[in-house]
């Protein structure tokens, strides 16, 4: 079943168009930064102002920029379309008159959507690393260290920087697993692909907006995006302790929405 779903996805132009779009943005950022490098100021030091120090920093910036919205949209498209797309085409009823359990079908779709998500993250970071290296060279990366007075740029050896970037990518991949689960669940609720994809994006954006509201601090831990940015501390010199909370949160949301999707789909009457 996984192979069937995989073939269905990789032979689709939309899949490759999404991945190409994700890879294009880091290249544009690189070109723009090469032509007009950001000025580094002592009191305004951030990840963007150290972008030109190494190709590795561009890979890092690509992950920062894309993981907030563009990646979410693409992941929502992969997951939200999975069941509702079949319903839209009418192929869902033919898939379900084969001797295959509905749970197996959902898990196959979740697996393939998640593998595509991992590939998307590789495309983003890879495009950033390659274009950044071409533009700014393959040097030690630069991170930021917080001091009592002001942040300082610090050099990070290539091996360690790549390790941190790999860890950051894995963390983002885990947070996206929850988005895949939410998308699959919403996809079982509707026969409209657009409705499933848009509602997945809306859930994530709404969570991001609520996370930013100071007066809602008591409910923030219950929001799926609460710990999404914790990985940035790997390069900003802050504490990375909350990354464990982020891991637990992503796993919890994934389990909740996977179970909801399985229960919903097992009981669903196929009318499309």
């Amino acid at each position, binding site marked *: *079943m996984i*192979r*069937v779903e995989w*073939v*269905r996805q990789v*032979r*689709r*132009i939309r899949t490759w168009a999404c991945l190409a779009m994700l890879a294009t943005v880091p290249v544009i950022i690189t070109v723009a930064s090469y032509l007009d490098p950001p000025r580094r100021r002592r009191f305004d030091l951030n990840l963007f102002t150290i972008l030109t120090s190494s190709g590795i920093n561009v890979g890092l910036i690509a992950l920062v920029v894309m993981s907030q919205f563009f990646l979410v949209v693409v992941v929502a498209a992969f997951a939200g379309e999975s069941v509702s797309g079949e319903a839209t*085409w*009418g*192929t869902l*009823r*033919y*898939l*379900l*008159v*084969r*001797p*295959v*359990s*509905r749970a*197996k079908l959902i898990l196959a779709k979740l697996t393939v959507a998640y593998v595509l998500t991992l590939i998307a993250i590789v495309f983003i970071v890879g495009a950033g690393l390659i274009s950044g290296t071409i533009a700014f060279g393959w040097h030690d990366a630069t991170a930021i260290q917080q001091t009592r007075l002001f942040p300082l740029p610090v050099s990070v050896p290539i091996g360690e920087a790549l390790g941190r970037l790999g860890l950051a990518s894995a963390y983002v991949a885990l947070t996206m697993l929850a988005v895949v689960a939410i998308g699959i669940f919403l996809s079982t609720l509707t026969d409209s692909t657009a409705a499933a994809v848009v509602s997945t994006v809306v859930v994530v954006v709404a969570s991001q907006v609520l996370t930013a509201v100071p007066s809602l601090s008591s409910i923030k831990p219950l929001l799926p995006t609460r710990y999404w940015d914790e990985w940035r501390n790997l390069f900003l010199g802050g504490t990375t302790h909350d990354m464990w909370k982020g891991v637990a949160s992503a796993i919890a949301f994934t389990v909740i929405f996977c179970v909801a999707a399985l229960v919903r789909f*097992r*009981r669903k*009457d*196929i*009318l499309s």
Partner: protein
Amino acid sequence: MTSIESPDIVIEADDLSKSFGGVQAVKNLSFKVQRGEVCGLLGPNGAGKTTSVRMLVGLIRPDTGSASLLGERMRPGHPVLRHVGLLVERPAFVPYLSGMRNLRLHWGAGGDKWPPPALDEALDLADLGDAIHRKVKGYSQGMRQRLGLAQAMMNAPALLVLDEPTNGLDPAETRRIRVAMGDISARGTTVLLSSHLLAEVEQMCSDALVIDHGTLVAAGTVADLVGSSKAVELEVDDAAKARTVLERIDGVLGIDAGEPVDHRLVVQLNGIARSEIVRALVLADVRVETAMPRRRLEDAYLSLVEHDG
């Protein structure tokens, strides 16, 4: 894939009921289809045919009752579906894949090894030629319909469930499908054929089920159902005058316009001989050119489902 020995009762619906949001789509539906039958499923739009078919194959969960196919009580994804071929409502395919790739994916979803046992025969029937390797989004409705039939038949099914199988086909294609249905049924495959084309059911089916408002209103052999209808088609010189005469006769149940309207009438009879109404018309100075018995499935069907307008 292993073949299966069909039991005597291939389809059994036992007290199936289903409602959607308070609307009763199917109510206490029970019937059986014997091995080797080509059984027509008839009913007006919204009668509950498609809901019934979907409950039979596990796409819809019944509120009450149960369905069995090939002796196995149905649930979604039951292994017995390996021996069932299905065309529900309209064929549906992944548009950006070729016809052949769609067949491969459909087959692969069940975990079976390619190729299916009756692939060549199914492709012959579909008669798509090189188009089988082209993307489905470029197919005409007829080509999709033929590919859908190939998909339903490539597993050499013991039971074939077809919903409007000749929809979108031209007369030559329709005839070809009809002949193929005859061949398939001659080999012992049981066929449940849902169709609005009553002439098609009459030609292809040995038995028929008539559903109306979600309930079974008639079941039996097509010959029995047709036999229960007694109608005569009259060709007269003045249809309006003939209608006035016939309306006064006790044994005339209904009068419908024939074609052409001015000269033909279809008259439903109850306990009165054809010769009696011809005599009455002649006495009223209406010239009767022909008075042919008309016992078609269409008449039987209409008399069964039009009772409440």
